């Protein structure tokens, strides 16, 4: 399915909605680590962001350059309407799976 999201992509999109309008690489990575305890490399974060942006789920804009970044500009990410819909559908699918009662046992009984 075109709107399928993997676990990292879901986590990142949720982090972006929480951090908007200040969602950039380090902030996203720190938020995920703080909440889930899982640490992702900056490279993994950027390749997922690139992928999501390519699919039209995110849009990026250049921010301010700060001294702690060696004069390089931040790249901020925002969720697009398509992205919000894809995230909603993806989470709804997981909820549906969780709420479905186990029928396997009944079938083998």
């Amino acid at each position, binding site marked *: 399915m075109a709107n399928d999201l993997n676990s990292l992509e879901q986590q990142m999109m949720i982090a972006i909605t929480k951090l908007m309008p200040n969602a*950039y*690489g*380090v902030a996203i*990575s720190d938020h995920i680590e703080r909440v889930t305890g899982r640490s992702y*490399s*900056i*490279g*993994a974060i*950027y*390749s997922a*962001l*690139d992928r999501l942006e390519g699919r039209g789920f995110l849009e990026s804009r250049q921010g*301010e*350059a*700060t*001294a*702690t*970044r*060696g*004069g*390089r*500009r*931040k*790249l901020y990410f925002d969720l697009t309407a398509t992205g919000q819909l894809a995230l909603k559908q993806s989470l709804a699918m997981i909820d549906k799976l969780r709420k479905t009662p186990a029928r396997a046992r009944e079938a083998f009984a």
Partner: protein
Amino acid sequence: MKALKALRPSEWLKWSLILSGAICGFAWFANAPWLMKLILSGVLGVYFALIALIVLNHTRRTRSDGDTVGLDTQSGTQRSSFNPPGVAEWLVVLIVSKRSSDGMLGDLEERFHRHVETHGLRRARWLYWAEVLRSIAPILWAKTKRLGMIAAIAEIWRRTHS
């Protein structure tokens, strides 16, 4: 020379690799004599020296772009006067696409200065290297797989045409 310097490092690397591959492929198929091979080695040497120069120039240029005041306006933290390892930065510029590399280098440097304050310079440098290797490994792996596919196609073509 100015026009060459204006090229992005990733474009340079891509085109020089394509050209080098084409030259080597031609020499291999044509079973070139030793003088030809010597000339080709010289050409490849000049290519890679130019790539290195341009990548270093790009790293310096992106570092000097923008505001370099000593205080980070958003977090309010003072920037340490230490720089992250240049070779690691060079690797990121070389392997990652231009669009991602600027943002990535900035994020890596932000973390580096945070680590300098909490762990000290020596450990911060180690952590920077670890983070760079962790970051570029999946990208390199993907590129290698793609190159492996190209090599496999070339091998099939060679076998079917020999």
